[in-house]
């Protein structure tokens, strides 16, 4: 109880409580994440169960009873009669899963390599950081597409749809590790010259133990900020790839896939099929980004 009270009064929570933007963003992100996680419970229909679909429901307008069946859908239906609201919930699931996992993958890879580069120095550092520099000269989306293409080429045809999500995660993760590595390397260079690290070396701790126990915790706060902003970027990257048709397969559509599907109907008047997934993506990415912005300010002692 007392700990809870201390936490509630800490500078960090205080700055959160006094930032309306942060509170609203977190609330929206929480609602969206919960809705996505519990999509099977929240969604009124299961849009990927062919047995529940009725083609007659196709192209229902939002909030209007369908002309043939009389069913009403909040956000309308697409060409195959799938409820747009339900597809968005399921799509967000894929988007968020890909986003979180890709960022986690990038974080683990980038932080380890950055830590090693900064601490060990010499040729190891040169090798790691030059690879990072070279990768930075390509747009991340291009790197992701390249990796996606290669991976697709080497996976057997019958497994492509199952593997697509994982390939997507690896592609986005690999295109995103560089900034983690650069930031962690920089912070490690600062920390490793501090006397407590010298002291740890002197008492004979192994380099691995020094890196994990002494340096890593001290370089984590910028990582947290980058991870949050990367999450928004990863969700957008996933949507972009899916929009281009190289991401999530139509059997497991993400928000990007939904936008791609909806795009085809925009000019024939069925605006809701693209509009609602697009708004969801916008709100999700914006909230995560604003949360990241707040986190950056809150963890930066100079801006307090």
């Amino acid at each position: 109880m007392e700990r809870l009270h201390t936490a509630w009064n800490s500078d960090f929570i205080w700055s959160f409580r006094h930032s309306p933007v942060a509170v609203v963003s977190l609330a929206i992100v929480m609602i969206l994440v919960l809705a996505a996680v519990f999509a099977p419970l929240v969604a009124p229909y299961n849009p990927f169960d062919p047995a529940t679909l009725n083609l007659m429901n196709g192209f229902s307008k939002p909030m209007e009873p369908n002309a043939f069946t009389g069913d009403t859908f909040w956000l309308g239906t697409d060409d195959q009669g799938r409820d747009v609201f339900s597809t968005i919930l399921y799509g967000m699931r894929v988007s968020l899963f890909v986003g979180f996992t890709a960022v986690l993958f990038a974080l683990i890879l980038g932080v380890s390599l950055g830590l090693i580069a900064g601490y060990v120095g010499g040729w190891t550092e040169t090798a790691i950081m030059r690879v990072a520099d070279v990768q930075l000269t390509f747009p991340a989306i291009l790197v992701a597409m390249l990796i996606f293409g290669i991976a697709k080429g080497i996976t057997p045809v019958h497994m492509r749809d199952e593997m697509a999500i994982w390939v997507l995660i690896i592609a986005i993760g690999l295109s995103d590790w560089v900034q983690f590595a650069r930031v962690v390397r920089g912070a490690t260079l600062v920390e490793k010259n501090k006397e407590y690290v010298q002291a740890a070396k002197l008492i004979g701790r192994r380099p691995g133990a020094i890196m994990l126990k002494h340096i890593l915790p001290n370089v984590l706060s910028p990582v947290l900020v980058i991870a949050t902003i990367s999450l928004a970027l990863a969700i957008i990257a996933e949507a972009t790839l899916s929009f281009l048709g190289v991401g999530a397969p139509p059997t497991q559509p993400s928000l990007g896939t939904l936008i791609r599907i909806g795009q085809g109907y925009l000019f024939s008047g069925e605006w809701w099929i693209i509009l609602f997934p697009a708004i969801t993506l916008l709100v999700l990415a914006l909230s995560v980004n604003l949360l990241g912005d707040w986190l950056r300010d809150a963890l930066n002692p100079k801006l307090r």
Partner: protein
Amino acid sequence: MADPVLSVRDLMVEIPTRHAVLRPVNGVTFDLAPGEILGMVGESGAGKSMTGNAVIGLLDRPARIAGGEILLHGKRIDQLSGEALRKLRGKHIGMVFQDPLTSLNPLLTIGEQLTETILEHLDVSQTEARQRAVDGLNEVGIPAAEQRMDAYPHQFSGGMRQRVVIALALCAEPSLIIADEPTTALDVSVQAQIIALLKRLCRERGTSVMLITHDMGVIAETADRVAVLYAGRMAELGSARDVLTHPQHPYTIGLMGSTPLASAGRERLYQINGSMPRLDALPIGCAFNPRCSRAQAQCGQEPPPTLAAHNDRAACWFAGEQT
């Protein structure tokens, strides 16, 4: 004299640069007896800290030991590498750093840092390590040590933190402590306490101390012997009493003359003209000769003989001659 804890023989540290090889430490020789406190003084850049870092084996690249020997309990440690060195030096050498702000990990409680060090070097259980850590904190005068074990470094004041650092340096029962300007970052009022504490604890345990400082007052209070460094060379070495009251090297004389004394009047302090030469532009002959008031022709031609471990006092052609 008993077998020395630390012997440094003709130590030479080099930093290769594009234009020349710099020698921030050049032919430093001294012994440190068990329980003895050796003060190392000199201006910034004289090679005090470099000598200390060479002894603990933490020279930053590209600096390297280029010559000489460092013996810890009679065993050479300057050529050991990796595992053996880590074990040996961690077990026998403790370090007190200059800035207590950065010498403790801000994200670990002081209890964790103490027990980590104890467990690394002493064969004791977790509970015993904790008990020893509490004892250590008590000894350095941290009140309510048991509760303070779970406090983080930022919850201590500078002086208290330096006490923790001393406890940390002593907790693995080393035979040698290297204190690199342990009081420079502290308030004057706290400096005396910390120095007294360090001195008392090391006396009680018979731990030798290599005290690196540029504060003559600290040396006078603490050290048994004094080594004066100038431009990487040993200028003078002798018992604290001799060096402080009857300095023989003109540099030491200058240093003593420029230390303010409460008893002295309000005359201007003596000032050594000029500043220490850059390492890549050392004068020929004695490195001090351009600034020396007693320099003769000989001083600008030939460097004075270096100091052997015990014999001579000052590395000066005219040492001992009274002005």
